[in-house]
């Protein structure tokens, strides 16, 4: 395709925002966010914890002890950095891979495991934790985010609704509708696209003729920015700014985080060697978010091997305990599903069907 000058002019404006380069050196000093040493260490802690959790989850899945799981390794900076910029009273509307963000927003780990296992207690979000359940339908959470943001605005709350999708999600009609509604009503919403380059197997180049996903914000009349999604400081700074923009009444934002998932799409039989080369994998592993941030912290004498070992141990212990807790959840029954079918009076058909399943399940 030969792009017109007018189009080229638009696309050229979307340059990737970066603070830390691949070697952990600060390349954009002016943009460095104000974070205490403790906060910096906490970000690293969470990324290491999430990497260990991912490894354990994959192994538990292979043992048949977890159920549905979408690996997150490679995307830690984009997940942890963006959630770190939020307030507890902000809402998160996640996609199916975005479990680390909702865990750090307040969903207990054992419930995340139960959700993976297909047990409804996994979705019983504790009171006061402002998250939606992980979305399975690609992009459906994006229009819902406009609704949550509208609710927050109507209630005069100084909070935002933030949502996550992937590069594939940016092709959905709901992606545009959600951004467009949020723009039209000037809502406090942040739309994040974790562009990990593949929608299962289809590369991002085949999703769209657009040079960036960030530029799709232009069509909705909202702010758009492309960010190095392997750089936790850039992710944090961009999200924080987008959050403030929303709260200040300056409109919603679209953030595109350039990232990569090292593993398969999910653990249900996807084989990335069918659609990716090992050269590409290697190239992205050089950009690893944890390696990069570790170097940055080590240079500041904020991180040591002992620190890291402690996090690894803690993660392993927590996961063991959470799996044990998940194992102790009562077996889910069909009659439980009948109980929660409707909020108000139970219709006659379910009353009759309950009798049948009560007998069937008492055997």
């Amino acid at each position, binding site marked *: 395709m030969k792009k017109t000058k007018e189009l080229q002019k638009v696309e050229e404006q979307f340059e990737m925002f970066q603070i830390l380069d691949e070697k952990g050196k600060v390349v954009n000093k002016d943009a460095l966010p104000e974070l205490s040493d403790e906060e910096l260490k906490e970000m690293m802690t969470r990324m290491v914890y999430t990497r260990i959790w991912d490894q354990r989850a994959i192994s538990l899945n292979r043992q048949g002890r977890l159920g549905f799981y979408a690996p997150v390794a490679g995307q830690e900076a984009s997940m942890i950095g963006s959630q770190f910029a939020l307030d507890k009273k902000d809402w998160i509307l996640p996609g199916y891979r975005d479990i680390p963000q909702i865990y750090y927003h307040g969903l207990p780990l054992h419930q995340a495991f139960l959700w993976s296992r297909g047990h409804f207690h996994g979705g019983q979000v504790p009171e006061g934790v402002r998250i939606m359940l992980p979305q399975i*339908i690609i992009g459906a959470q994006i*229009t819902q985010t406009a*609704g949550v943001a509208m609710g927050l605005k109507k209630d005069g709350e100084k909070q935002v*609704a933030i949502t996550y999708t992937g590069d594939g999600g940016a092709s959905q009609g709901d992606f545009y509708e959600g951004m467009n509604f949020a723009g039209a009503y000037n809502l406090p919403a942040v739309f994040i696209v974790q562009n990990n380059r593949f929608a299962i197997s289809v590369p991002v180049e085949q999703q769209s003729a657009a040079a960036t996903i960030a530029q799709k914000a232009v069509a909705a009349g909202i702010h758009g920015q492309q960010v190095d999604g392997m750089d936790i400081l850039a992710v944090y700074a961009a999200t924080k700014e987008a959050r403030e923009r929303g709260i200040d009444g300056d409109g919603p934002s679209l953030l595109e985080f350039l990232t990569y998932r090292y593993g398969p799409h999910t653990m249900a039989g996807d084989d990335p060697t069918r659609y990716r080369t090992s050269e590409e994998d290697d190239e992205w592993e050089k950009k690893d978010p944890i390696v990069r941030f570790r170097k940055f912290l080590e240079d500041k004498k904020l991180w040591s091997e002992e620190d890291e070992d402690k996090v690894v141990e803690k993660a392993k212990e927590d996961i063991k305990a959470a799996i044990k807790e998940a194992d102790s959840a009562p077996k889910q029954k069909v009659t439980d599903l009948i109980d929660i079918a409707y909020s108000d009076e139970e219709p006659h058909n379910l009353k009759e069907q309950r009798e049948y399943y009560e007998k069937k399940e008492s055997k």
Partner: protein
Amino acid sequence: MAQMTMIQAITDAMRNELKNDDRVLVYGEDVGKNGGVFRATEGLQKEFGEDRVFDTPLAESGIGGLAHGLSLTGHRSVMELQFFGFVFEAFDSIAGQMARLHNRSGGVYNAPVTIRSPFGGGVKTPEMHADSLEGLMAQTPGLKVVIPSNPYDAKGLLISAIRDNDPVIFLEHMKLYRSFRDEVPEEEYTVPLGKADVKREGTDITIIAYGAMVQASMKAAEQLEKDGVSAEVIDLRTISPLDIDCIVDSVKKTNRAVMVQEAQKQAGIASTVVAEINDRAILSLEAPVGRVTAPDTIFPFASAEDTWLPNEKDIVAKAKEIIEF
């Protein structure tokens, strides 16, 4: 008591609930300043302000997502789909999302959303405006589906729908909007969801219908009366959940039944009603339960509408066939 058309009764119900509960919001395409393409929301924006009654961008899936999101922050939505044929654009947000919210969150979240929409044949609309798509909705767990046949019920049912804590599809037959007036109390009242209404008592056959087919059935019953057949007419009012007790009690009395729907025949409400009667009252039946429906084609282009739609003559003929079985 005031005389109201169905559209006036519907506006009155929304006005009542906007007054009654400040968490109620009314929105959709052309709903605000214009008062809706059928004027169902006439005057509401002026009375309650742009914060409570407002226009949306033209995107049905977006409207559905908005309602879902507003539910999470504790708002109660009355969203309009301008014509029910446009529901396919919003199908995921309704059937995939709102209908499942209470279930998939283990009862923690719920979607108190009323989805109002005009539908129904006989008014010569362009394509995708008149289709009877209620069967698709009735097959979706987590939804309730309500179809009033007259102004009095429309007001009482709509108030119940708005107060319901789960999503309710509220379908308004276009032909009924202004075709007649009823006495409708100006004060608030509710008609319960899931309860049918015996519109006319009879002893020989039960005619079961909803929406515009209730009027056709009443006319058919009058004709049958002249021909010496006493027909009972039941208005389902809610098609999900169905009021099975009302249907079965009547069939046990009359021993014969015919179900009338404007929708196509296959896999619809009529099929479910026939199956339920078979399950519960087969030994009371003197004849197979009949169905009067539209044929299994797409909703016709306007010039073929009159023949395509079931009418009172079809109902009379079917009833006689059943009586003479």
